[in-house]
Protein backbone atom coordinates (compact mmCIF):
# COMPACT_ATOMS: atom_id res chain seq x y z
CA UNK A 1 0.00 0.00 0.00
CA UNK A 2 2.71 2.40 1.09
CA UNK A 3 4.91 1.22 -1.76
CA UNK A 4 2.11 2.08 -4.15
CA UNK A 5 1.83 5.59 -2.75
CA UNK A 6 5.59 6.12 -2.92
CA UNK A 7 5.73 4.98 -6.52
CA UNK A 8 2.63 6.93 -7.56
CA UNK A 9 4.33 10.20 -8.61
CA UNK A 10 6.91 8.36 -10.71
CA UNK A 11 4.28 6.11 -12.22
CA UNK A 12 2.06 9.07 -12.98
CA UNK A 13 4.93 10.90 -14.64
CA UNK A 14 5.80 7.83 -16.69
CA UNK A 15 2.22 7.12 -17.70
CA UNK A 16 0.85 10.59 -18.36
CA UNK A 17 3.91 12.39 -19.65
CA UNK A 18 5.81 9.63 -21.41
CA UNK A 19 3.67 6.62 -22.24
CA UNK A 20 0.43 8.31 -23.33
CA UNK A 21 2.08 10.88 -25.63
CA UNK A 22 4.09 8.05 -27.19
CA UNK A 23 0.93 6.06 -27.80
CA UNK A 24 -0.74 9.14 -29.26
CA UNK A 25 2.15 9.79 -31.61
CA UNK A 26 2.30 6.12 -32.56
CA UNK A 27 -1.31 6.23 -33.63
CA UNK A 28 -0.57 9.41 -35.57
CA UNK A 29 2.34 7.82 -37.36
CA UNK A 30 0.25 4.90 -38.54
CA UNK A 31 -2.24 6.87 -40.61
CA UNK A 32 -2.19 8.98 -43.73
CA UNK A 33 -4.33 11.75 -45.06
CA UNK A 34 -6.65 10.59 -47.81
CA UNK A 35 -8.82 13.66 -48.02
CA UNK A 36 -9.72 16.86 -46.12
CA UNK A 37 -10.14 15.82 -42.48
CA UNK A 38 -10.05 12.17 -43.57
CA UNK A 39 -7.41 9.76 -42.37
CA UNK A 40 -6.89 6.08 -43.04
CA UNK A 41 -4.60 3.62 -41.29
CA UNK A 42 -1.48 2.94 -43.32
CA UNK A 43 2.25 2.51 -43.20
CA UNK A 44 2.82 5.20 -45.82
CA UNK A 45 4.78 7.46 -43.46
CA UNK A 46 7.32 4.75 -42.72
CA UNK A 47 7.54 3.79 -46.38
CA UNK A 48 8.43 7.37 -47.30
CA UNK A 49 11.48 7.22 -45.06
CA UNK A 50 12.91 4.21 -46.85
CA UNK A 51 11.87 5.29 -50.34
CA UNK A 52 13.06 8.88 -50.23
CA UNK A 53 16.91 8.87 -50.29
CA UNK A 54 17.18 12.25 -48.55
CA UNK A 55 15.67 11.00 -45.32
CA UNK A 56 17.72 7.90 -44.72
CA UNK A 57 20.89 9.60 -46.01
CA UNK A 58 20.34 12.28 -43.40
CA UNK A 59 19.74 9.62 -40.76
CA UNK A 60 22.87 7.75 -41.72
CA UNK A 61 24.90 10.94 -41.59
CA UNK A 62 23.44 11.80 -38.18
CA UNK A 63 24.25 8.34 -36.86
CA UNK A 64 27.82 8.34 -38.19
CA UNK A 65 28.57 11.81 -36.85
CA UNK A 66 27.08 10.88 -33.48
CA UNK A 67 29.37 7.86 -33.32
CA UNK A 68 32.36 10.07 -34.17
CA UNK A 69 31.28 12.65 -31.59
CA UNK A 70 30.90 9.91 -28.95
CA UNK A 71 34.34 8.56 -29.74
CA UNK A 72 35.95 12.02 -29.58
CA UNK A 73 34.19 12.71 -26.28
CA UNK A 74 35.54 9.44 -24.89
CA UNK A 75 39.09 10.25 -26.01
CA UNK A 76 38.90 13.67 -24.38
CA UNK A 77 37.05 12.60 -21.24
CA UNK A 78 39.26 9.63 -20.35
CA UNK A 79 42.41 11.57 -19.40
CA UNK A 80 40.30 14.11 -17.52
CA UNK A 81 38.50 11.36 -15.60
CA UNK A 82 41.84 9.63 -14.92
CA UNK A 83 43.32 12.79 -13.45
CA UNK A 84 40.25 13.47 -11.31
CA UNK A 85 39.97 9.89 -10.08
CA UNK A 86 43.61 8.90 -9.65
CA UNK A 87 46.18 11.64 -9.97
CA UNK A 88 44.70 14.77 -8.43
CA UNK A 89 45.66 15.32 -4.81
CA UNK A 90 43.20 16.78 -2.35
CA UNK A 91 40.99 19.48 -3.77
CA UNK A 92 42.54 19.58 -7.25
CA UNK A 93 40.22 16.75 -8.34
CA UNK A 94 37.05 18.51 -7.21
CA UNK A 95 38.30 21.71 -8.81
CA UNK A 96 38.84 20.02 -12.15
CA UNK A 97 35.40 18.46 -11.91
CA UNK A 98 33.81 21.84 -11.27
CA UNK A 99 35.64 23.19 -14.32
CA UNK A 100 33.85 20.51 -16.37
CA UNK A 101 30.57 21.38 -14.68
CA UNK A 102 30.62 25.19 -15.04
CA UNK A 103 29.61 25.31 -18.75
CA UNK A 104 26.34 23.65 -17.76
CA UNK A 105 25.37 26.52 -15.50
CA UNK A 106 24.16 28.26 -18.64
CA UNK A 107 21.59 26.77 -20.99
CA UNK A 108 22.59 24.89 -24.10
CA UNK A 109 21.31 27.77 -26.24
CA UNK A 110 23.61 30.27 -24.60
CA UNK A 111 26.56 27.87 -24.80
CA UNK A 112 26.00 27.26 -28.49
CA UNK A 113 25.57 30.97 -29.16
CA UNK A 114 28.86 31.42 -27.32
CA UNK A 115 30.53 29.10 -29.81
CA UNK A 116 28.97 31.10 -32.65
CA UNK A 117 30.45 34.29 -31.29
CA UNK A 118 33.85 32.64 -31.20
CA UNK A 119 33.74 30.96 -34.56
CA UNK A 120 31.70 33.10 -36.93
CA UNK A 121 33.41 35.09 -39.63
CA UNK A 122 33.29 38.28 -37.64
CA UNK A 123 34.09 36.47 -34.44
CA UNK A 124 37.02 36.10 -32.07
CA UNK A 125 38.90 33.11 -33.47
CA UNK A 126 39.04 34.17 -37.13
CA UNK A 127 40.21 37.61 -36.03
CA UNK A 128 42.97 35.93 -34.00
CA UNK A 129 43.99 33.86 -37.02
CA UNK A 130 44.26 36.98 -39.14
CA UNK A 131 46.25 38.71 -36.43
CA UNK A 132 48.68 35.79 -36.18
CA UNK A 133 49.11 35.92 -39.91
CA UNK A 134 47.66 32.46 -40.49
CA UNK A 135 44.89 33.78 -42.78
CA UNK A 136 44.56 36.82 -44.99
CA UNK A 137 40.79 37.19 -44.53
CA UNK A 138 38.80 35.99 -41.51
CA UNK A 139 37.66 32.45 -42.48
CA UNK A 140 34.09 31.30 -41.87
CA UNK A 141 34.52 28.58 -39.27
CA UNK A 142 30.81 27.96 -38.72
CA UNK A 143 28.52 25.80 -40.80
CA UNK A 144 31.00 22.97 -41.13
CA UNK A 145 30.85 19.37 -39.92
CA UNK A 146 33.85 19.96 -37.68
CA UNK A 147 32.03 22.84 -36.01
CA UNK A 148 29.06 20.61 -35.24
CA UNK A 149 31.41 18.01 -33.76
CA UNK A 150 33.12 20.61 -31.56
CA UNK A 151 29.77 21.80 -30.25
CA UNK A 152 28.50 18.27 -29.61
CA UNK A 153 31.65 17.16 -27.80
CA UNK A 154 31.61 20.29 -25.65
CA UNK A 155 28.02 19.64 -24.66
CA UNK A 156 28.57 15.94 -23.95
CA UNK A 157 31.84 16.02 -22.03
CA UNK A 158 30.33 16.06 -18.56
CA UNK A 159 28.09 13.09 -19.32
CA UNK A 160 31.13 11.05 -20.24
CA UNK A 161 33.35 12.27 -17.39
CA UNK A 162 30.92 11.37 -14.61
CA UNK A 163 30.53 7.62 -15.25
CA UNK A 164 34.23 7.37 -16.09
CA UNK A 165 35.26 8.97 -12.80
CA UNK A 166 32.95 6.59 -10.92
CA UNK A 167 34.38 3.60 -12.75
CA UNK A 168 38.01 4.64 -12.33
CA UNK A 169 37.70 5.56 -8.65
CA UNK A 170 36.67 1.98 -7.92
CA UNK A 171 39.91 0.69 -9.43
CA UNK A 172 42.25 -0.36 -6.65
CA UNK A 173 45.71 1.17 -7.04
CA UNK A 174 47.29 -2.05 -5.83
CA UNK A 175 46.07 -3.75 -9.03
CA UNK A 176 48.09 -1.30 -11.09
CA UNK A 177 51.11 -1.74 -8.85
CA UNK A 178 50.80 -5.52 -9.03
CA UNK A 179 50.73 -5.28 -12.84
CA UNK A 180 53.90 -3.15 -12.82
CA UNK A 181 55.50 -5.59 -10.43
CA UNK A 182 54.77 -8.46 -12.82
CA UNK A 183 56.50 -6.68 -15.68
CA UNK A 184 53.73 -4.76 -17.46
CA UNK A 185 54.34 -1.34 -19.00
CA UNK A 186 51.96 1.62 -18.91
CA UNK A 187 50.19 0.88 -22.17
CA UNK A 188 49.64 -2.79 -21.31
CA UNK A 189 48.18 -1.83 -17.96
CA UNK A 190 45.76 0.50 -19.71
CA UNK A 191 44.76 -2.18 -22.16
CA UNK A 192 44.53 -5.16 -19.82
CA UNK A 193 43.57 -3.73 -16.45
CA UNK A 194 42.18 -0.20 -16.60
CA UNK A 195 39.93 -0.42 -19.64
CA UNK A 196 38.39 -3.82 -18.79
CA UNK A 197 37.71 -2.54 -15.29
CA UNK A 198 36.20 0.72 -16.55
CA UNK A 199 34.30 -0.95 -19.41
CA UNK A 200 30.83 -0.63 -17.85
CA UNK A 201 31.48 3.03 -17.13
CA UNK A 202 32.78 3.62 -20.64
CA UNK A 203 29.74 1.89 -22.13
CA UNK A 204 27.35 3.81 -19.90
CA UNK A 205 28.96 7.10 -20.87
CA UNK A 206 28.95 6.22 -24.55
CA UNK A 207 25.28 5.26 -24.53
CA UNK A 208 24.28 8.49 -22.83
CA UNK A 209 26.43 10.65 -25.10
CA UNK A 210 25.31 8.84 -28.25
CA UNK A 211 21.64 9.24 -27.37
CA UNK A 212 22.14 12.88 -26.49
CA UNK A 213 23.96 13.76 -29.69
CA UNK A 214 21.62 11.76 -31.91
CA UNK A 215 18.59 13.53 -30.50
CA UNK A 216 20.20 16.96 -30.25
CA UNK A 217 18.35 19.62 -32.21
CA UNK A 218 19.82 22.92 -31.07
CA UNK A 219 23.55 22.51 -31.41
CA UNK A 220 23.76 20.96 -34.89
CA UNK A 221 21.20 23.39 -36.30
CA UNK A 222 22.80 26.53 -34.91
CA UNK A 223 26.39 25.55 -35.58
CA UNK A 224 25.75 23.75 -38.86
CA UNK A 225 23.08 25.97 -40.33
CA UNK A 226 21.62 24.75 -43.56
CA UNK A 227 24.52 22.31 -43.95
CA UNK A 228 23.81 20.52 -40.69
CA UNK A 229 21.45 17.90 -42.20
CA UNK A 230 20.71 16.55 -38.76
CA UNK A 231 17.80 14.14 -38.55
CA UNK A 232 16.09 16.05 -35.76
CA UNK A 233 15.93 18.97 -38.14
CA UNK A 234 13.93 16.79 -40.52
CA UNK A 235 11.48 15.98 -37.73
CA UNK A 236 11.19 19.68 -36.95
CA UNK A 237 10.59 20.48 -40.60
CA UNK A 238 7.77 17.94 -40.86
CA UNK A 239 6.04 19.09 -37.69
CA UNK A 240 6.48 22.83 -37.83
CA UNK A 241 7.13 23.89 -41.38
CA UNK A 242 4.91 21.43 -43.20
CA UNK A 243 2.31 20.61 -40.57
CA UNK A 244 2.77 16.96 -41.50
CA UNK A 245 2.45 15.56 -37.99
CA UNK A 246 1.98 12.03 -39.25
CA UNK A 247 5.29 12.12 -41.05
CA UNK A 248 7.03 13.80 -38.15
CA UNK A 249 5.69 11.21 -35.73
CA UNK A 250 6.89 8.39 -37.97
CA UNK A 251 10.34 9.97 -38.16
CA UNK A 252 10.39 10.29 -34.39
CA UNK A 253 9.70 6.61 -33.92
CA UNK A 254 12.19 5.68 -36.58
CA UNK A 255 14.82 7.71 -34.74
CA UNK A 256 13.93 5.96 -31.49
CA UNK A 257 13.95 2.52 -33.06
CA UNK A 258 17.12 2.88 -35.08
CA UNK A 259 19.11 4.46 -32.27
CA UNK A 260 18.00 1.69 -29.89
CA UNK A 261 19.12 -0.85 -32.49
CA UNK A 262 22.52 0.86 -32.72
CA UNK A 263 22.94 0.85 -28.93
CA UNK A 264 21.98 -2.83 -28.72
CA UNK A 265 24.45 -3.63 -31.51
CA UNK A 266 27.13 -1.67 -29.71
CA UNK A 267 26.50 -3.55 -26.47
CA UNK A 268 26.65 -6.87 -28.29
CA UNK A 269 29.92 -5.98 -30.00
CA UNK A 270 31.63 -4.95 -26.76
CA UNK A 271 30.11 -7.85 -24.84
CA UNK A 272 28.45 -5.78 -22.14
CA UNK A 273 25.13 -6.39 -20.44
CA UNK A 274 22.73 -3.47 -20.30
CA UNK A 275 21.82 -4.19 -16.68
CA UNK A 276 25.47 -4.16 -15.58
CA UNK A 277 26.13 -0.95 -17.45
CA UNK A 278 23.19 0.93 -16.01
CA UNK A 279 24.05 -0.20 -12.51
CA UNK A 280 27.48 1.39 -12.82
CA UNK A 281 26.21 4.80 -14.00
Amino acid sequence: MVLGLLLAPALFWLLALVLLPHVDLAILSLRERVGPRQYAASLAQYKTFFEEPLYWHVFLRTAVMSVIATFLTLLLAFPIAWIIAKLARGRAGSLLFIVCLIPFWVSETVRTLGWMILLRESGVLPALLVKLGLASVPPELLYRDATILVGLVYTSLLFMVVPLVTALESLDNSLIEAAYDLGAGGFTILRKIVIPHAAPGITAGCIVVFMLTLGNYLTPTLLGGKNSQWFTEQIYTQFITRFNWEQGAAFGFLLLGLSTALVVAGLKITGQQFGDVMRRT
Partner: protein
Amino acid sequence: MSTPDLTAERLVKRFANHLAVDSLSFSVQRGSFFSILGPSGCGKTTLLRMIAGFIAPDEGDIAIGGKSMSGVAPNRRPVNMVFQQLALFPMMSVGENVAFGLARRGMDRQERLQRSNAMLERVGLAGASAKRVDELSGGQRQRVAIARSLVLEPTLLLLDEPLGALDLKLREHMKIELKQLQAAFGTTFVYITHDQSEALVLSDHVAVMHEGRFEQIGTPQDLYYRPQTPFVAGFVGANNRIVGRATVRNGAMTEMTTADGWSMRALQYGDSAVGDAVEVFVRPEIATLARSAADLPPDQPAHSGEVQSVLFDGANSAVLLQEIKTRREFRIALPQTGQFSDLRPHEKIAFSFDPQRAVCFAARSGVTV
Protein backbone atom coordinates in the same frame (compact mmCIF):
# COMPACT_ATOMS: atom_id res chain seq x y z
CA MET B 1 80.06 -17.32 0.46
CA SER B 2 77.81 -16.47 -2.50
CA THR B 3 76.57 -12.94 -3.17
CA PRO B 4 73.69 -12.06 -0.90
CA ASP B 5 70.44 -11.87 -2.81
CA LEU B 6 69.57 -8.54 -1.26
CA THR B 7 71.87 -5.86 0.09
CA ALA B 8 70.75 -2.52 1.40
CA GLU B 9 73.23 0.22 2.22
CA ARG B 10 72.40 3.21 4.37
CA LEU B 11 68.86 3.55 3.10
CA VAL B 12 67.06 6.73 4.08
CA LYS B 13 63.53 7.85 3.29
CA ARG B 14 61.87 11.01 4.52
CA PHE B 15 58.21 11.96 4.17
CA ALA B 16 57.55 15.67 4.82
CA ASN B 17 58.79 16.02 8.41
CA HIS B 18 58.82 12.31 9.23
CA LEU B 19 61.85 10.04 8.91
CA ALA B 20 60.37 6.73 7.83
CA VAL B 21 63.60 4.80 7.21
CA ASP B 22 66.67 5.89 9.11
CA SER B 23 69.95 4.78 7.52
CA LEU B 24 69.31 1.04 7.26
CA SER B 25 71.97 -1.40 6.12
CA PHE B 26 71.46 -5.15 5.97
CA SER B 27 71.87 -8.13 3.69
CA VAL B 28 69.83 -11.25 3.05
CA GLN B 29 71.47 -14.52 2.03
CA ARG B 30 70.27 -16.58 -0.91
CA GLY B 31 67.49 -19.03 -0.19
CA SER B 32 66.72 -17.71 3.29
CA PHE B 33 63.46 -16.57 4.79
CA PHE B 34 64.01 -13.08 6.15
CA SER B 35 61.32 -11.31 8.14
CA ILE B 36 61.04 -7.70 9.12
CA LEU B 37 58.99 -7.45 12.28
CA GLY B 38 57.68 -4.23 13.69
CA PRO B 39 54.62 -2.37 14.95
CA SER B 40 52.41 -0.29 12.63
CA GLY B 41 54.12 2.86 11.47
CA CYS B 42 57.67 1.64 12.02
CA GLY B 43 58.56 2.04 8.34
CA LYS B 44 58.57 -1.59 7.23
CA THR B 45 56.08 -1.09 4.38
CA THR B 46 58.13 1.87 3.14
CA LEU B 47 61.23 -0.30 3.20
CA LEU B 48 59.49 -3.06 1.25
CA ARG B 49 58.21 -0.64 -1.36
CA MET B 50 61.71 0.71 -1.81
CA ILE B 51 63.01 -2.80 -2.44
CA ALA B 52 60.17 -3.41 -4.91
CA GLY B 53 60.89 -0.13 -6.67
CA PHE B 54 57.66 1.78 -6.06
CA ILE B 55 59.45 4.39 -3.93
CA ALA B 56 62.94 5.71 -4.56
CA PRO B 57 65.18 6.06 -1.49
CA ASP B 58 66.38 9.56 -0.63
CA GLU B 59 69.84 8.22 0.16
CA GLY B 60 71.53 4.87 0.00
CA ASP B 61 71.39 1.99 -2.44
CA ILE B 62 69.70 -1.36 -2.89
CA ALA B 63 71.43 -4.20 -4.70
CA ILE B 64 69.63 -7.38 -5.74
CA GLY B 65 71.74 -10.33 -6.78
CA GLY B 66 74.76 -8.07 -6.71
CA LYS B 67 73.34 -5.51 -9.16
CA SER B 68 72.43 -2.02 -8.04
CA MET B 69 68.75 -1.19 -8.42
CA SER B 70 68.97 2.58 -8.33
CA GLY B 71 66.92 4.02 -11.17
CA VAL B 72 65.49 0.62 -12.11
CA ALA B 73 61.68 0.62 -12.49
CA PRO B 74 59.59 -1.97 -10.62
CA ASN B 75 58.70 -3.81 -13.81
CA ARG B 76 62.41 -4.29 -14.57
CA ARG B 77 63.56 -5.66 -11.23
CA PRO B 78 64.06 -9.39 -10.56
CA VAL B 79 61.72 -8.97 -7.63
CA ASN B 80 58.09 -9.89 -7.23
CA MET B 81 55.69 -8.86 -4.53
CA VAL B 82 52.67 -10.45 -2.88
CA PHE B 83 50.47 -7.53 -1.83
CA GLN B 84 48.62 -7.23 1.44
CA GLN B 85 45.24 -7.27 -0.29
CA LEU B 86 46.63 -9.76 -2.80
CA ALA B 87 45.70 -7.56 -5.81
CA LEU B 88 44.49 -10.45 -7.93
CA PHE B 89 43.03 -9.24 -11.25
CA PRO B 90 39.26 -9.73 -11.05
CA MET B 91 38.78 -9.26 -14.78
CA MET B 92 40.91 -12.35 -15.52
CA SER B 93 40.62 -16.03 -14.67
CA VAL B 94 42.96 -17.72 -12.19
CA GLY B 95 45.05 -19.17 -15.01
CA GLU B 96 45.32 -15.78 -16.73
CA ASN B 97 46.36 -14.20 -13.43
CA VAL B 98 49.16 -16.69 -12.93
CA ALA B 99 50.28 -16.41 -16.56
CA PHE B 100 50.18 -12.58 -16.58
CA GLY B 101 53.87 -12.08 -15.88
CA LEU B 102 54.85 -14.78 -18.35
CA ALA B 103 52.74 -13.14 -21.06
CA ARG B 104 54.54 -9.84 -20.41
CA ARG B 105 57.81 -11.62 -21.14
CA GLY B 106 56.53 -12.62 -24.57
CA MET B 107 56.24 -16.30 -23.82
CA ASP B 108 54.03 -18.17 -26.29
CA ARG B 109 50.64 -19.47 -25.26
CA GLN B 110 51.55 -23.14 -25.06
CA GLU B 111 54.46 -22.61 -22.73
CA ARG B 112 52.52 -20.12 -20.61
CA LEU B 113 49.73 -22.62 -20.11
CA GLN B 114 52.16 -25.37 -19.25
CA ARG B 115 54.07 -23.32 -16.68
CA SER B 116 51.06 -21.75 -15.04
CA ASN B 117 49.29 -25.09 -14.72
CA ALA B 118 52.43 -26.68 -13.26
CA MET B 119 52.71 -23.84 -10.74
CA LEU B 120 49.03 -24.10 -9.76
CA GLU B 121 49.57 -27.78 -9.14
CA ARG B 122 52.58 -27.08 -6.93
CA VAL B 123 50.57 -24.74 -4.73
CA GLY B 124 47.76 -27.27 -4.49
CA LEU B 125 45.29 -25.64 -6.87
CA ALA B 126 45.42 -28.10 -9.75
CA GLY B 127 42.50 -27.62 -12.11
CA ALA B 128 41.52 -24.22 -10.74
CA SER B 129 42.86 -22.46 -13.79
CA ALA B 130 39.50 -21.65 -15.36
CA LYS B 131 37.87 -20.31 -12.20
CA ARG B 132 37.19 -16.64 -11.57
CA VAL B 133 39.00 -14.97 -8.71
CA ASP B 134 35.84 -14.30 -6.70
CA GLU B 135 34.98 -18.00 -6.68
CA LEU B 136 37.99 -18.78 -4.49
CA SER B 137 38.31 -18.83 -0.71
CA GLY B 138 40.78 -16.63 1.19
CA GLY B 139 43.43 -19.32 1.48
CA GLN B 140 43.10 -20.24 -2.19
CA ARG B 141 43.48 -16.62 -3.26
CA GLN B 142 46.59 -16.39 -1.13
CA ARG B 143 48.05 -19.33 -3.01
CA VAL B 144 47.14 -17.85 -6.40
CA ALA B 145 48.90 -14.61 -5.45
CA ILE B 146 52.01 -16.54 -4.46
CA ALA B 147 51.84 -18.72 -7.58
CA ARG B 148 51.54 -15.62 -9.77
CA SER B 149 54.81 -14.29 -8.38
CA LEU B 150 56.77 -17.53 -8.06
CA VAL B 151 56.04 -18.64 -11.64
CA LEU B 152 58.36 -15.82 -12.74
CA GLU B 153 61.23 -17.37 -10.74
CA PRO B 154 62.28 -14.10 -9.12
CA THR B 155 65.51 -13.65 -7.22
CA LEU B 156 63.52 -12.23 -4.36
CA LEU B 157 59.90 -12.61 -3.28
CA LEU B 158 58.49 -9.82 -1.12
CA LEU B 159 55.45 -10.51 1.04
CA ASP B 160 53.54 -7.62 2.61
CA GLU B 161 51.69 -8.99 5.66
CA PRO B 162 49.93 -11.57 3.49
CA LEU B 163 48.23 -13.43 6.35
CA GLY B 164 46.60 -10.42 7.96
CA ALA B 165 43.15 -10.88 6.48
CA LEU B 166 42.83 -14.58 7.29
CA ASP B 167 41.14 -16.14 10.30
CA LEU B 168 43.20 -17.87 12.97
CA LYS B 169 43.02 -21.50 11.85
CA LEU B 170 43.69 -20.58 8.23
CA ARG B 171 46.56 -18.36 9.28
CA GLU B 172 48.18 -21.16 11.23
CA HIS B 173 47.75 -23.47 8.25
CA MET B 174 49.16 -20.92 5.77
CA LYS B 175 52.18 -20.30 8.00
CA ILE B 176 53.18 -23.92 7.62
CA GLU B 177 52.41 -23.87 3.91
CA LEU B 178 54.50 -20.75 3.34
CA LYS B 179 57.45 -22.26 5.16
CA GLN B 180 57.19 -25.43 3.10
CA LEU B 181 56.80 -23.48 -0.16
CA GLN B 182 59.88 -21.44 0.59
CA ALA B 183 61.90 -24.56 1.38
CA ALA B 184 60.64 -26.32 -1.76
CA PHE B 185 61.32 -23.42 -4.14
CA GLY B 186 64.48 -22.16 -2.52
CA THR B 187 63.54 -18.56 -3.43
CA THR B 188 64.65 -15.87 -1.02
CA PHE B 189 61.62 -14.55 0.84
CA VAL B 190 61.45 -11.14 2.47
CA TYR B 191 58.40 -11.03 4.71
CA ILE B 192 57.06 -8.09 6.65
CA THR B 193 54.64 -8.43 9.52
CA HIS B 194 53.61 -6.99 12.85
CA ASP B 195 52.72 -10.45 14.16
CA GLN B 196 55.73 -11.75 16.02
CA SER B 197 54.39 -15.30 16.06
CA GLU B 198 54.51 -15.37 12.25
CA ALA B 199 58.03 -13.97 12.22
CA LEU B 200 59.30 -16.49 14.75
CA VAL B 201 57.70 -19.53 13.12
CA LEU B 202 58.52 -18.76 9.50
CA SER B 203 61.92 -17.13 9.42
CA ASP B 204 65.55 -18.02 9.29
CA HIS B 205 66.41 -14.46 10.32
CA VAL B 206 64.30 -11.69 11.73
CA ALA B 207 64.96 -7.97 11.91
CA VAL B 208 62.97 -6.11 14.52
CA MET B 209 62.18 -2.62 13.24
CA HIS B 210 61.22 0.37 15.32
CA GLU B 211 60.90 3.98 14.19
CA GLY B 212 62.86 3.48 11.00
CA ARG B 213 65.76 1.55 12.51
CA PHE B 214 66.57 -2.11 13.04
CA GLU B 215 66.82 -2.72 16.76
CA GLN B 216 68.17 -6.23 16.33
CA ILE B 217 68.74 -8.75 13.55
CA GLY B 218 69.10 -12.40 14.41
CA THR B 219 67.58 -15.84 14.40
CA PRO B 220 64.18 -16.16 16.09
CA GLN B 221 65.89 -17.91 19.00
CA ASP B 222 68.37 -15.05 19.38
CA LEU B 223 65.59 -12.51 19.52
CA TYR B 224 63.54 -14.47 21.96
CA TYR B 225 66.21 -15.66 24.42
CA ARG B 226 68.83 -12.93 23.98
CA PRO B 227 67.06 -9.64 23.21
CA GLN B 228 69.56 -6.80 22.93
CA THR B 229 67.25 -3.85 23.48
CA PRO B 230 64.27 -3.22 25.75
CA PHE B 231 62.03 -2.77 22.73
CA VAL B 232 62.89 -6.20 21.35
CA ALA B 233 62.45 -7.78 24.77
CA GLY B 234 59.00 -6.25 25.12
CA PHE B 235 57.84 -6.77 21.54
CA VAL B 236 58.91 -10.33 20.81
CA GLY B 237 56.88 -12.77 22.84
CA ALA B 238 55.06 -12.01 26.04
CA ASN B 239 57.21 -10.46 28.75
CA ASN B 240 56.79 -8.95 32.17
CA ARG B 241 58.32 -5.48 32.35
CA ILE B 242 59.34 -4.02 35.71
CA VAL B 243 60.93 -0.58 36.00
CA GLY B 244 63.15 0.43 38.91
CA ARG B 245 66.55 1.75 39.97
CA ALA B 246 69.75 -0.30 39.95
CA THR B 247 70.98 -0.77 43.53
CA VAL B 248 73.86 -3.26 43.18
CA ARG B 249 76.11 -4.13 40.25
CA ASN B 250 77.64 -7.57 40.75
CA GLY B 251 79.61 -8.73 37.72
CA ALA B 252 77.10 -9.54 35.03
CA MET B 253 74.12 -9.27 37.36
CA THR B 254 72.25 -6.20 38.46
CA GLU B 255 70.02 -5.94 41.48
CA MET B 256 67.27 -3.34 41.22
CA THR B 257 64.45 -2.03 43.37
CA THR B 258 61.20 -0.53 42.16
CA ALA B 259 59.94 2.78 43.47
CA ASP B 260 57.54 0.95 45.80
CA GLY B 261 60.13 -1.48 47.18
CA TRP B 262 60.12 -4.68 45.13
CA SER B 263 63.65 -6.00 44.59
CA MET B 264 64.90 -8.48 42.06
CA ARG B 265 68.06 -9.47 40.20
CA ALA B 266 68.57 -9.91 36.46
CA LEU B 267 71.29 -10.35 33.85
CA GLN B 268 72.56 -6.99 32.67
CA TYR B 269 72.66 -6.12 28.96
CA GLY B 270 74.62 -3.07 28.02
CA ASP B 271 75.79 -0.48 30.56
CA SER B 272 74.14 0.89 33.60
CA ALA B 273 75.53 2.32 36.80
CA VAL B 274 74.15 2.05 40.34
CA GLY B 275 71.32 4.55 40.70
CA ASP B 276 70.32 4.51 37.02
CA ALA B 277 66.76 3.77 35.94
CA VAL B 278 66.53 0.26 34.51
CA GLU B 279 63.93 -1.97 32.87
CA VAL B 280 63.82 -5.66 33.80
CA PHE B 281 62.09 -8.22 31.61
CA VAL B 282 60.97 -11.61 32.93
CA ARG B 283 59.38 -14.12 30.57
CA PRO B 284 56.16 -15.66 31.90
CA GLU B 285 57.43 -19.20 31.30
CA ILE B 286 60.68 -18.94 33.32
CA ALA B 287 58.84 -18.27 36.59
CA THR B 288 57.90 -21.12 38.92
CA LEU B 289 54.69 -21.24 40.96
CA ALA B 290 54.25 -22.88 44.37
CA ARG B 291 51.56 -22.95 47.04
CA SER B 292 54.15 -22.11 49.68
CA ALA B 293 57.61 -20.57 49.51
CA ALA B 294 59.18 -23.78 50.84
CA ASP B 295 58.27 -25.58 47.62
CA LEU B 296 60.19 -23.11 45.43
CA PRO B 297 63.68 -23.91 44.07
CA PRO B 298 66.09 -22.99 46.92
CA ASP B 299 68.63 -21.03 44.82
CA GLN B 300 66.06 -18.56 43.50
CA PRO B 301 64.82 -15.48 45.37
CA ALA B 302 61.20 -16.06 46.49
CA HIS B 303 58.38 -13.62 45.90
CA SER B 304 54.75 -13.76 46.90
CA GLY B 305 51.65 -12.65 45.14
CA GLU B 306 47.88 -12.73 45.05
CA VAL B 307 46.07 -14.22 42.10
CA GLN B 308 44.16 -11.60 40.13
CA SER B 309 42.76 -13.75 37.32
CA VAL B 310 43.42 -17.02 35.56
CA LEU B 311 43.68 -16.65 31.76
CA PHE B 312 42.70 -19.99 30.37
CA ASP B 313 43.95 -20.59 26.84
CA GLY B 314 44.47 -24.33 26.63
CA ALA B 315 48.19 -25.06 26.61
CA ASN B 316 48.97 -21.30 26.71
CA SER B 317 47.19 -20.68 29.98
CA ALA B 318 48.61 -18.05 32.31
CA VAL B 319 47.89 -16.58 35.69
CA LEU B 320 47.82 -12.84 36.24
CA LEU B 321 48.88 -12.04 39.79
CA GLN B 322 49.79 -9.01 41.83
CA GLU B 323 52.97 -8.90 43.88
CA ILE B 324 51.87 -8.90 47.47
CA LYS B 325 53.46 -5.62 48.67
CA THR B 326 53.55 -3.43 45.59
CA ARG B 327 50.43 -4.78 43.81
CA ARG B 328 52.39 -4.74 40.54
CA GLU B 329 50.99 -7.01 37.87
CA PHE B 330 52.98 -10.13 36.97
CA ARG B 331 52.10 -12.80 34.47
CA ILE B 332 53.23 -16.43 34.85
CA ALA B 333 52.60 -19.22 32.37
CA LEU B 334 50.73 -22.15 33.94
CA PRO B 335 52.46 -25.50 33.62
CA GLN B 336 50.95 -27.53 30.82
CA THR B 337 50.46 -30.48 33.14
CA GLY B 338 47.42 -28.68 34.52
CA GLN B 339 48.97 -28.59 37.96
CA PHE B 340 47.76 -25.13 38.96
CA SER B 341 44.55 -25.12 36.94
CA ASP B 342 42.51 -24.86 40.14
CA LEU B 343 43.84 -21.44 41.14
CA ARG B 344 41.15 -18.97 42.14
CA PRO B 345 41.26 -15.16 42.31
CA HIS B 346 42.51 -13.77 45.65
CA GLU B 347 44.47 -16.93 46.49
CA LYS B 348 47.92 -16.30 47.92
CA ILE B 349 50.69 -17.87 45.89
CA ALA B 350 54.48 -17.94 45.95
CA PHE B 351 56.63 -17.56 42.82
CA SER B 352 60.27 -17.28 41.86
CA PHE B 353 62.43 -17.11 38.73
CA ASP B 354 66.05 -17.69 37.82
CA PRO B 355 67.70 -14.23 37.70
CA GLN B 356 70.15 -15.48 35.06
CA ARG B 357 67.25 -15.82 32.63
CA ALA B 358 65.76 -12.41 33.28
CA VAL B 359 67.27 -9.45 31.42
CA CYS B 360 67.96 -5.93 32.59
CA PHE B 361 68.47 -2.89 30.35
CA ALA B 362 69.22 0.75 30.97
CA ALA B 363 65.86 2.47 30.84
CA ARG B 364 64.89 4.16 27.57
CA SER B 365 64.47 7.92 27.53
CA GLY B 366 61.02 8.92 28.70
CA VAL B 367 60.62 5.98 31.09
CA THR B 368 59.61 7.06 34.59
CA VAL B 369 60.59 4.95 37.60
